Structures are given as C-alpha cells and as structure tokens.
C-alpha cells in the first residue's frame, strides 16, 4: 500500500465557486411515493437518428453482437451535454456492406440535437468502433475523446474550436486489436492521465468475415462460438509522459493481463481509500481483475483474494459492464458488474479497505438480473431521494434465442430499473418506470446524464442495428439536487479521479469522477447528488487526485455549481 500523500493546505482555504446555474424548482420533497419513476423515449424528437451498425443480423461472430458505447460530454463548453455515439460496421455474409460512422450530436438546448460529426471530424476514421472514454488528457481545458476500435484506437484531441483531430498515432496508443473498455486515470500520481485499454479476443478481420455459427446452444441451435475456445487478447496500459505521448508500460507497472482475460468494462477508482487510483476490469468468462495501486505507479492484481473477482459461489462470471457507487451511504465504493443471461449480475459491497463481498442476493439484485443478458449499468439517484438507484441495460447476443421461446429468453430485452431503499437493498421497479422501460431492445451501452439541465438524470442507450435510445427522466423529483462540475486549471493536474463528499440532511454522499464506466460508455462528468429533503449541502468536500482538498459549506440545493481547483 502506498503512503497517503500529504494533503495540501486546501482545507478551509479559499475555494472558487466560478459559476452556478439554477434549474427548475423540484417538486416538494416526498411528493411522490417510492417506485414512482417515469422515463419517456424522446429519441426521435431529439434527433438522435444514427443507426448503430453491428455486423450481420444472425450474429455469426461475437464482434457482431458486442455493440458499442455511448457518451455524454460537453465538447464545446456551453454548459449543455452533447452526445457521442460509437458505431460498428454492417456485414452480410463475408462482405462489408457499410462502415458505420460515429456521431457527435451537439445539444441545442431545446431538447434537440444537431449532428456535427462532419464539421467536428469525429466520424471514427471508418473503423469498427467499440468503446469511449472522455478526459482532458492534454490538460488544455477541453474534453478529448478516446474511441477504442476493432483496429487501431482513435484519440480525438479537442482543438477547442468545435473540431477534433485524431492524434492516436503520435500519442502512441493505437494498439491495433479488438479493444473495448478504457479508462484514463493518473496511475503514478504525477498529475498526468495514463490510459488502460482492455482487449477482448485475438482475432483478425478475416476471422470475423469468415465466421460461422458452430457453437451448440442448448442442443437446439447453432450460435456464434466463444469466447472460450478463442485466444484472449492482452490488455494495454499506457503511461503518459505529460507531453501528449504515451508508452506501453504494463510490465513495469504490474498492470498485466496475465490471464489474457476477455476484457470489457474498465473503471478506475480509489477502492481502498488510500488516496491513489486502483483499477477494476470486468472480464467475460474470466475472473475480473482488481489492480491495487501500491503507490509509485506500481500495481498488484488482488482480485481473487479481495473478493471482487468471482461470484459468491467462486464462479467466474461473464463480466460485461461495470459501475461503481456507494449503495448504502457508508462512504465506501461498491462495484456492480453485469453478466451473461441465466446468471446474476453481481454486486460487490466494499469495506473501504479494498475487500469486497458478493451481496447480490441480499441486496435484491440477483433475482431481477438473473434472466437477462446485461451490459451497460449505472448507479444514479434517478429520483433525487438521496440514494443511488441502479439501471441495467439488457439484450441477448444470440438472435437465435427468439426461435426457442420455451427457454423464456428473448434477443431484445427490457432495461431494468432497481430502486435503492436507502439501505443498499434494491427493488425492481421497471414495470412502473414509464414507457421508456417497457420496450425491449438489443441494448448495450448506457450513459447517464442530465442533458436537459433540469436537475435529474436521463439515460442514453446504444442498441444493435438501430438508433440509440434517449430516455428523458420525467420522474417527479422526490428531493433536491446539486450538480457539481470540477475544473482544474491547465497544467495543474487532472480532475479525473477526484472525489466529492456531500453532507446533507444527515447523510453523507460520495461521487467520484471517472473517464468512463458502464459498458464502453461515459456518464455525465458533472457529479450529480440527489439530496432528498435537504435544501442545502452542509459541507461539500472535494478531494483532488493530488491529495489536496477544498471545502464549501452551506451550499444551497437545486443548482449547478462549478468548483475550480484552488492553488
């Protein structure tokens, strides 16, 4: 374990509140009963029309069915969330029919979006895109976009004028392969963002094009084989030199994918509360990794003995997506990993020291998540009642399951909304969550964000062979909110990895800033707190990645605030 860094003398020092905005007034706290959620599908009226291509309709190869991520980011700094969509290719037999274009949609601020892909130069270089991570990797004040692909990765550097340029080659992070989830984080505490990129299986485009469905599924049909029986591809870790270039540094740091796990979701966070960033990797059909930061940029993989790798039954599950939050308000980060159909998605409760316990059963998430095949996920306080609810996006990988209704599985599946009772126990409230939760989709990515700046969190979902889905949160708010934007002046480190602790109404809520999580996706990087009946935050503490702290007191609720890192 590393020694804690010395805290800067930020405590009690001047804090900079450099901007704030006021959202519409909430409903009176407690105005709606628990379980009253309403999400409305507004995709069409919002103008998010890009069809997200995904191989062949019969899904002959796993690449056909893996899908891609979605992201919320404010690329132009106008205070409104824009949407970025990663796109795949369309195949027919062993032919490429269409190379899908990624899409950048600028938020007009009136509930609609404008497609600015062409003029922003973010179409994805005709590559089969997979995952997205967003971070200001060059610390120039503008969020950049990493796109992992089946091929060389893309790093879109934000020029700050509404356009981007792909600098992946000069940055040294192309790493051709089937790359999936990724996370920017400061691994060695030097103030620069480093990068971990998970990889799935080692295969070529020719393998994909020539693929045949040869795996026997329940004795009734043939489906795409894998991942077992296929060679896993090694994940990558790139260390930043602080000048826009990276070098592969897996071996020297210990961030080594020794099992050649079939990597998907990645999340960096300080799981053991020692002040540095650890890393979690969800592996499909393999034990998940928990790389513990030992300090000084050295890591140790401790997943198996920390309790965060396997199910309670000691089984490796088919990890897809990952989300991190604090389910019971104890100040410790918990991990939720989505898994394959007919197996539950797993909730690991953290003890704050880096140890975890599978509490899926007692927390009520095992039952609702057992049947569907799950991907994107997010802890988010969707009704602003002061605890983090859980959204899970589902969709099977085998279209063939629809031919066999006797198994009770479907290719398109409804998403799940699990409401937190405030004690870390969840109840499936999907059926009453409005029309947006009643439609089955072949869902994959999920990004949560307040695109309409009304103080609650909306949902952006990627689907296979269809446009995305935007679910507007029309839930009557059951409490106040506070949304916090963290800002670090150029050249003064990063906000990624910062933790914000809000004390309000007798509760302590924590949020941390990540470059992405869920399934290959990126949530709103403004940190949203539901505050329940509290009308102010008594104490708001920011713990910056460099160990310095800033504290605000008596912050009124129902506003958007921006906190700039002080000297």
């Amino acid at each position, binding site marked *: *374990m590393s020694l804690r860094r010395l805290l800067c003398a930020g405590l009690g020092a001047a804090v900079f509140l450099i901007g704030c905005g006021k959202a519409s007034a909430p409903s009176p706290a407690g105005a709606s009963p628990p379980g009253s959620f309403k999400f409305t599908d507004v995709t069409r009226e919002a103008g998010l029309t890009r069809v997200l291509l995904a191989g062949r309709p019969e899904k002959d190869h796993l690449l056909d069915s893996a899908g891609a991520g979605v992201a919320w980011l404010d690329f132009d700094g106008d205070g409104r969330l824009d949407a970025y969509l990663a796109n795949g290719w369309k195949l027919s037999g062993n032919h490429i029919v269409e190379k899908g274009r990624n899409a950048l949609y600028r938020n007009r601020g009136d509930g609609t979006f404008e497609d600015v892909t062409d003029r922003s130069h973010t179409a994805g270089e005709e590559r089969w895109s997979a995952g997205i991570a967003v971070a200001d990797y060059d610390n120039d004040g503008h969020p950049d976009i990493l796109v992992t692909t089946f091929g060389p990765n893309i790093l879109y550097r934000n020029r700050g004028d509404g356009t981007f340029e792909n600098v992946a080659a000069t940055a040294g992070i192309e790493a051709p392969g089937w790359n999936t989830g990724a996370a920017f984080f400061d691994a060695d505490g030097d103030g620069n963002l480093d990068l971990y990129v998970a990889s799935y299986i080692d295969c070529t485009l020719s393998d994909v094009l020539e693929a045949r469905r*040869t*795996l*026997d*599924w329940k004795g009734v049909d043939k*489906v795409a*084989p*894998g*991942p*077992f*029986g*296929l*060679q*896993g591809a090694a994940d990558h870790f790139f260390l930043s030199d602080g000048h826009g270039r990276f070098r592969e540094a897996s071996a020297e740091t210990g961030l080594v994918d*020794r*099992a*050649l*796990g079939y990597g998907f979701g990645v999340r960096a966070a300080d799981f053991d509360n020692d002040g540095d960033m650890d890393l979690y990797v969800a592996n499909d*059909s*393999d*034990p998940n990794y928990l790389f513990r930061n030992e300090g000084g940029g050295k890591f140790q*993989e*401790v997943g*198996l*003995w*920390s*309790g965060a790798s*396997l*199910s309670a*039954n*000691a*089984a*490796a599950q*088919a990890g897809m997506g990952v989300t991190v939050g604090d389910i019971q308000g104890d100040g410790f980060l918990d991990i939720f990993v989505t898994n*394959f159909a*007919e*197996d539950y998605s797993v909730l690991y409760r953290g003890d704050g*020291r880096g*140890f975890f316990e599978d509490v899926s059963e007692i927390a009520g998430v095992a039952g609702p998540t057992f049947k569907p095949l799950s991907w994107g996920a997010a802890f988010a306080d969707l009704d602003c009642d002061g605890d983090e609810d859980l959204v899970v996006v589902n969709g099977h*990988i085998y279209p063939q399951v629809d031919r066999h209704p006797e198994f009770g599985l479907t290719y398109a599946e409804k998403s799940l909304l699990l409401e937190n009772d405030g004690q870390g126990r969840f109840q499936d409230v999907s059926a009453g969550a409005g029309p947006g939760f009643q439609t089955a989709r072949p869902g994959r990515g999920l990004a949560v964000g307040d695109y309409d700046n009304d103080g609650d969190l909306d949902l952006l979902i990627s689907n296979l062979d269809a446009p995305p889905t935007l679910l507007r949160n029309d839930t009557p708010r059951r409490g106040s909110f506070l949304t916090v934007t963290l800002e670090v002046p150029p050249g003064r480190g990063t906000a990624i990895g910062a933790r914000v602790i809000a004390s309000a109404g007798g509760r302590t809520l924590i949020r941390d800033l990540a470059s992405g999580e869920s399934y290959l996706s990126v949530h709103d990087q403004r940190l949203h707190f539901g505050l329940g009946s509290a009308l102010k935050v008594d104490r708001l503490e920011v713990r910056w990645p460099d160990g310095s702290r800033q504290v605000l007191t008596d912050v009124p609720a129902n506003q958007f605030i921006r906190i700039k890192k002080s000297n």
Partner: protein
Amino acid sequence: MVRAGRILTLLLALAIFTLTSPVLAAGPAPTGTPEEMVATYRSLAETILSAKKTEWNLVSSILAATYQHAEGTMAQAQGEIKAHKDAKAQIEKLAALVAELGNEGDSSVASVRKKLVEGGHHHHAAEEQQGIYDEGYVIVTRTAKKVFLEAASNIGKMAGSPNAAALTSEWGKVSKQYTELMAHK
C-alpha cells in the same frame, strides 16, 4: 500433449488408405468399422488418456509447488508477527498464494486452462447452483476453491492487524483442504 495437426495427418492417411483399399474396390462393403480405424482410435485413446494423466500430474505439481511456497511464507509471516515486525507483506503474499491454490495456479495458468475449455459461453447455471461447475479445473473442486478463496480473503484482511492465532486457524483450513484434495490421487 498430442498436436492436433499430427492426429489430423494420421486420420487423413487412414482415410486415404481405406478409400483405396482393395476390399472396398472389390465389391460389396463389409459391415462393421474397419479394423484399421479401430486400431487407430485405440492408439489415439491411449494418447489422450496419457495426455490427461500428464495434465493431472502437471497441475498436481503446480499445486504442490504453490502449497510449499505458501507454507514457507506462512512460517515467515508467523516469525515476523512473533518478532513484532511488520508482517503485512508476507501475509498478503500468503493470501495471494492461497488464492492461487484455489485458482489452480496464477492467472497465467488460467490463460492456458481456458484454451482447453470447450468453446462457447461456458455457462452452466444449473451446475453452478449445485456447486459442481468446475470450469475446466483438473484437481480443485468448486467446494475446495471456495474454501481456499475464503481463507485467502480472511488472511488478506489480517494484513492490517496481524494475529498469529487467527492466521494459524486460517492456514489450518487451507492445509486441511489441500491434504484432502491430494489424497484423492
């Protein structure tokens, strides 16, 4: 391990031999599987069984080496606790080694193992529920795996506040489980 290519070559040669055989060319095909094929299959079976035995022995050696390493680490950890030295590193090392027992080797071994697992989303919910799903493990059963991993976690948690008696207790569980597994040789 027999190379797939070698077997394929063997089978191909046999097929050519059979198709060009005078028996087939002469008239009505005899019933029954050709003796040459049966003989080849018998030979192949012996090779497969021999390879499986080799695999078992190899995994057994991996477990034995890991156990010995863990045993030595346990002694070192106890020594440091007794001497009031910082035993954290040794205890965490012990936790990792015990986890490796549960995993039949470290994660690089796992990368080999999954090449041997049948293709596909290897997922057997019913067997998982019954606790018999073994995901390609050779010696370590699901029950044993749980014992090892639980002990590993308990040992790891002691790193912050070492306790010799508690450590001995956890090691006892590991030792007992290991002995039981190896007794089934």
